[in-house]
């Protein structure tokens, strides 16, 4: 149903009714890329040959309802472009969940081996008959008759039941609750609330919260994600004088009169002339069309032009922005009518120019020209193009000033164009016409000859000036990318745009810096050399640099630019066979050394392919994809974490994503703060759960050695049941919801802290082993501590609390209760030691749980419960508490259990502190001295509309960074205007820089002044 409908409908007809249905297998035209043109289907139907020329677009077919033809529907259903570019949603599992499952398998293994060991030991131990069945513990007849294998099996199962608590079923419940409840913090986050959209972040799945803290690769769409999808004319510079319209504020166009600030500054004759020519050049030298009515939605780039129903449309959004910018500076392009271009100039007069020739833009020349005839009969050639293609052809004009300005703007990430003109005499014009017509009529090498003709015509320019257009970056996009880089993430920009545009954005968004060495892997290069050579050469470069620079790798970073065609070549070469060289590996190797990669000219599914490729590379990095449009959906679905931007292009991406945020800048908070917190929270949750269950069950395992392997439980049933449900559940759940090991401000200030938790560092096997060993150690302490108190000694209460008793013996339930009490206190206090952020909630649940345990035990042992047929816990807890040695041993055992962990923590912090621990130290130091200063200063810098304390975090760095897209403060404009003259061009960079740094000092800031 796709493809060009270049020819009339199939030329064969037939009876549509009687023909049997036949199914044809049609080869797919060039795998799923955007080049649909190369069709190869050949198909014979009744001797009619069908080729691509017979293909017809479905939409056309439905529109032209004529007499019935016989048609073959091809590429339908699941073979449509839509369907093929769509990827089914697969379940995503986080890295934490995967390691959790791995740990679980280990614990399952431990459980089974414990049961097996005990069963085997039981029968080994029972080998002698006096142990098997002593006279005081006879079996029933039934039991005696049971076969030994069955007995052994039942014993095994009984041990499994006894030890099953080591598999923390409640952990899964707690993890789910943590994820579900925890995700509310994302939706609740006011900083991620967008005033314009009236929406905050959305959480579509809570399964991946912690994965946000593990991201290593960020794949981002460009248009609409990094940029606002909105080109804007920023400034122009005529002979070094800068003109800045500051018209668009919050999407509303100010009246034209007020938008021109400084055009009328001492108009000298020469200058005035250039100025006029410059504005006219921009109004004329373009291929913009004026659309009078609101048509289809596809003309999004059109901006309202005076009347509500007219738009500028063009294949290049830059041109629209330029023409639009001119309009704001007072020169309105009205229409092209009968080959005359009409301009409404500043004095509201209509000027008409006859359009004679358009020398179209191409990417080799990187410029375009028009030849027009003014109403006064002058022939003018206007040319605009990239600086590199204009400057060599300029013969006069203030080249130096313009060049300085252009360079400055390029550094700022603006898309610059230079404008030049040439007056043509009648003879010049005729000659040019001659060249052009000859070339256009040439039968062979037409393009080459056209290029030659252009080359002849476009020369001897007089430089007029330069323009700067911004594909407006989203607010704080550069800052966000910088933070992501600092956090150790590799950012890839995947875009369908052409390379130059994309690269400009990458520079603007600080993805590439000036120091970045760009490696190109594009079709242009692979046409010159083979893919093989290019790849190897790049790889060599990377490796050489890496080995040369040694330690200072991060000083020199690489940026890679690759286009869709080359990418599919890289991937395809690999599919064809490993013999042709493992390009994929080499490619990945190059990518690994690049901090930033730009993939341009990508088809939607290729975006997903790239993500898949990285996912499958040998390190298995965690990937994140972020995009706003339907074309990003496949990538969002493919990546470990998919984030949708609630952008202008519908909500497809947001709906298919795991998380949806209003703006790209929110990614920073999402990853660096929420992701970080969720990760450390859940990591502790998982480890702690395994730990506390080891502590819980291991004493019971040890007890089997002292009760003849008879599956005697150490703890009462109520304790067994409630341990995970009530006594130890809430503290860890609340910990995993509110813990903040460092403050939000610190995380924001220092994105590199994110590296500290990368690669699932808190759930690696050594850490897991540490926790498990700690659990075993604690369990051994609990059990043998109690054992030595009970064993062969007269461990008794002196009965001072209960005067009728002076001596009481403790039974096995007291033994279990003693162990259990130590256990509950130890694991809770262990969590208390790990808690770094004690809110009232933490205090409440930690001390509350302990209190609950004590109260429950008093109650459970204080009453003869009528529904129980055994009263074994009756007064056990109270009797235990009435014994001095019990108190002493509880205190001792808790202390001993906690000691090693405390010592380990203190020593590690002193000897090899992690970045996070350093940050904590730093926080603590600064909390003392600067505490009073910080809130004040940040409050001052905060935008005045709200007094919310939640915004106090706005650090100085954020307030200071000035974005070009922000409307400039009025005062600054005045400064610029007063400066005037030719010096301004060279001065203004400093002024602008200053304005960046001094933004905070222009007291009320732009928000209040505009």
């Amino acid at each position, binding site marked *: 149903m796709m493809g060009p409908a270049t020819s009339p409908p199939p030329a064969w007809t037939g009876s549509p009714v009687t023909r049997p249905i036949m199914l044809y297998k049609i080869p797919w035209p060039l795998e799923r890329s955007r080049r649909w043109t190369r069709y190869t289907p050949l198909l014979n139907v009744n001797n009619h040959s069908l080729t691509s020329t017979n293909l017809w677009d479905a939409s056309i077919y439905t529109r032209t309802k004529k007499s019935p033809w016989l048609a073959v529907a091809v590429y339908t259903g699941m073979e449509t472009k839509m369907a093929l570019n769509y990827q089914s949603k697969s379940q995503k599992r986080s890295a934490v969940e995967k390691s959790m499952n791995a740990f679980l398998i280990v614990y399952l293994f431990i459980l089974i081996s414990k049961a097996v060991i005990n069963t085997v030991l039981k029968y080994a131990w029972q080998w002698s008959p*006096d142990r098997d069945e*002593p*006279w005081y*513990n*006879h079996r*029933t*007849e039934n039991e005696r008759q049971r076969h030994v294998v069955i007995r052994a099996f039942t014993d095994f199962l009984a041990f499994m039941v006894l030890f099953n608590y080591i598999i923390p079923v409640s952990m899964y419940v707690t993890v789910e609750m943590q994820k579900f409840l925890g995700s509310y913090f994302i939706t*609740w*986050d*006011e900083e991620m*609330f967008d005033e314009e959209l009236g929406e*905050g972040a959305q959480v579509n799945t809570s399964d991946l919260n912690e994965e946000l803290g593990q991201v290593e690769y960020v794949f981002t769409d460009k248009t609409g994600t990094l940029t606002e999808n909105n080109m804007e004319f920023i400034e122009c510079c005529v002979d070094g004088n800068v003109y800045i319209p500051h018209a668009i504020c919050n999407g509303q166009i100010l009246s034209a009169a007020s938008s021109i600030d400084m055009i009328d500054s001492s108009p000298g004759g020469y200058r005035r002339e250039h100025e006029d020519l410059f504005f006219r050049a921009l109004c004329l030298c373009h291929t913009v069309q004026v659309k009078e009515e609101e048509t289809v939605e596809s003309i999004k780039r059109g901006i309202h032009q005076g009347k509500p129903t007219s738009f500028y449309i063009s294949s290049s959004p830059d041109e629209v922005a330029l023409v639009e910018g001119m309009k704001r500076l007072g020169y309105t392009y009205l229409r092209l009518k009968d080959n005359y271009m009409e301009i409404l100039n500043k004095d509201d007069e209509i000027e008409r120019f006859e359009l004679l020739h358009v020398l179209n833009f191409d990417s080799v020349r990187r410029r375009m020209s028009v030849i027009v005839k003014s109403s006064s009969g002058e022939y003018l050639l206007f040319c605009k193009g990239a600086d590199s293609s204009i400057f060599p052809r300029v013969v006069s004009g203030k080249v130096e000033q313009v060049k300085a300005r252009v360079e400055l703007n390029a550094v700022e990430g603006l898309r610059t164009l230079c404008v030049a003109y040439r007056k043509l005499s009648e003879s010049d014009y005729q000659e040019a016409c001659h060249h052009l017509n000859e070339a256009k009529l040439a039968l062979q090498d037409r393009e080459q000859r056209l290029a030659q003709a252009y080359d002849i015509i476009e020369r001897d320019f007089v430089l007029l000036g330069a323009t700067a257009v911004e594909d407006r970056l989203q607010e704080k996009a550069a800052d966000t990318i910088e933070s992501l880089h600092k956090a150790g993430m590799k950012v890839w920009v995947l875009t369908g745009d052409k390379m130059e545009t994309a690269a400009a954005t990458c520079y603007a968004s600080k993805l590439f810096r000036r120091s970045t060495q760009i490696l190109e892997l594009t079709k242009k290069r692979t046409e010159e050399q083979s893919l093989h050579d290019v790849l190897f050469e790049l790889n060599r470069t990377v490796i050489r640099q890496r080995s040369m620079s040694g330690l200072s790798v991060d000083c020199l970073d690489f940026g890679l630019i690759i286009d869709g065609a080359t990418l599919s070549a890289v991937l395809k070469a690999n599919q064809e066979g490993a013999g042709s060289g493992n390009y994929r590996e080499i490619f990945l190797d190059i990518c690994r050394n690049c901090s930033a990669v730009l993939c341009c000219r990508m088809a939607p599914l290729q975006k997903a392919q790239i993500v898949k490729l990285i996912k499958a590379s040998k390190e298995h990095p965690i990937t994140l994809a972020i995009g706003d449009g339907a074309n990003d959906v496949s990538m969002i679905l493919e990546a470990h974490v998919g984030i949708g931007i609630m952008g202008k292009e519908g909500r497809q991406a947001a709906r298919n994503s795991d998380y949806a945020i209003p703006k790209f800048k929110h990614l920073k908070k999402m990853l660096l703060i929420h992701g970080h*917190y969720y990760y450390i929270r859940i990591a502790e949750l998982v480890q702690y759960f395994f730990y506390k269950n080891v502590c819980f069950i291991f004493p019971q395992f040890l007890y089997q050695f*002292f*009760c*003849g392997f*008879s599956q005697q*439980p150490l703890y009462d049933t109520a304790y067994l049941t409630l341990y995970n449900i009530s006594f130890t559940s809430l503290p860890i759940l609340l910990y995993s919801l*509110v813990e*903040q090991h460092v403050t*939000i401000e610190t995380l924001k200030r220092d994105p590199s802290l994110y590296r500290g938790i990368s690669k699932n560092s808190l759930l690696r096997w050594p850490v897991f082993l540490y926790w498990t060993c700690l659990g075993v150690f604690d369990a051994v302490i609990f059990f043998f*501590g109690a054992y*030595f*108190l009970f*064993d*062969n*000694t*007269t461990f008794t*209460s*002196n009965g001072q609390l*209960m005067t009728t*008793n002076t*001596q*009481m*013996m403790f*039974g*096995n339930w007291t*033994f279990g209760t003693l162990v259990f009490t130590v256990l509950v206190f130890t694991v809770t206090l262990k969590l208390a*030691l790990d808690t*770094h952020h004690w*809110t*009232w909630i*933490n205090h409440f649940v930690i001390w509350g749980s302990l209190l609950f345990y004590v109260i429950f035990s008093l109650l459970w042992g204080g009453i*003869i419960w009528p529904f129980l*047929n055994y*009263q074994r816990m*009756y*007064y056990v807890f109270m*009797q235990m508490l009435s014994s001095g040695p019990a108190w*002493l*041993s509880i205190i001792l055992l808790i202390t*001993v259990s906690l*000691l090693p962990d405390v*010592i380990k923590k*203190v020593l590690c*912090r*002193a000897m090899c502190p992690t970045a996070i621990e350093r940050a904590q*130290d730093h926080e*603590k130091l600064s909390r003392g001295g600067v505490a009073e200063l910080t809130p004040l200063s940040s409050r001052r810098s905060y935008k005045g509309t709200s007094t919310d*304390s939640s915004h106090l975090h706005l650090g100085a760095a954020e307030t200071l960074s000035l974005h070009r897209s922000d409307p400039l403060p009025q005062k600054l404009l005045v400064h610029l205007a007063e400066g005037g003259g030719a010096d301004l061009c060279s001065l203004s960079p400093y002024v602008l820089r200053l304005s960046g740094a001094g933004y905070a000092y222009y007291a009320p800031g732009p928000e209040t002044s505009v």
Partner: protein
Amino acid sequence: MVKQEREIGNRPDNTAFTQQRLPAWQPMLSAGIVIPGFVLIGLAFIGIGVALFVTSRSIQVLEMDYTGVEPTSPCFRCSDPDVKNCVCNLAFNIDTLFKGPVFFYYGLSNYFQNYRKYSVSKDDDQLSGDLDNFESPSDTCSPYETVGSVPIVPCGSIANSMFNDTFKLYQIVNGNEKLVPFDGKGIAWWTDYNVKYRNPSVTPLKNAFNNTVKPISWPKPAYELDTSDAANNGFINQDFLVWMRTAALPDFRKLYRRITEGDYAKGLPAGNYTLKIAYNYPVLSFQGRKMVVFSNVSWMGGKNEFLGIAYLVVGSMCVFMSIVMLIVYAKFKFPEED
């Protein structure tokens, strides 16, 4: 306006909780806290340890095995299971005054009162005097639930295996045996005696046991455990209560009597003693051992050196670790801070 309202409606609550900005105390295990803390804990523990150790040392314990495994043992004759109603005399002598109150225990080793089947083999309802459970004891009592179809009361393995050696202590004064009075009251838990275990409210008690049989191993039924004292008979017999509280570990002691009365209220004076043991309880079949223990107690209970030593060890470890940490800190931390 509508849009504004929507925005306000969607806007998340700006509370300290939702914005994760609850005020918090952020303690840290830094050297400044941990090292002094360790020193303090260490010193406190050493103090407690010394006190415990000294106390424990002052406690006198006298243990005597009377299983009769060795032929030289006075109870060797009795250890033969075929010999019935055997009494053996265990003579011993005390050098110095055994300070009172003296507690007299019997001890069993290699005896697993904590077998799972064994420790559940009783009927708590029956033992609380519920007559319904006299007629049909709980299944858990099996195989000591019934004899034929007649229910056993008290049923179950624990009751059946009740310790039934009896002891009488004599001091040899001028060649004559002088009985040392035993106090058998209040040796069980107060709650067991007063709440948990109840005799059925039938008088005479014997009638409640109609249509039941005594446990197989018992020489006499429950209502004859102490015919001299109704408050110590049946299910609330102190020896029975002590036995019914199953021990945690296979080597255990149980309180038998206290010596608090008469001439011996201050303790056992130095001299020669004879313990007359009615040897009934078989332990050799499962390699068990029987012993008697005389002990006095302190504020912290019976003799228990473990606790004192443990406190001393942990306390000194704390002090030691604080020194180690101090060294580590001096080495790693201070240069940085400069």
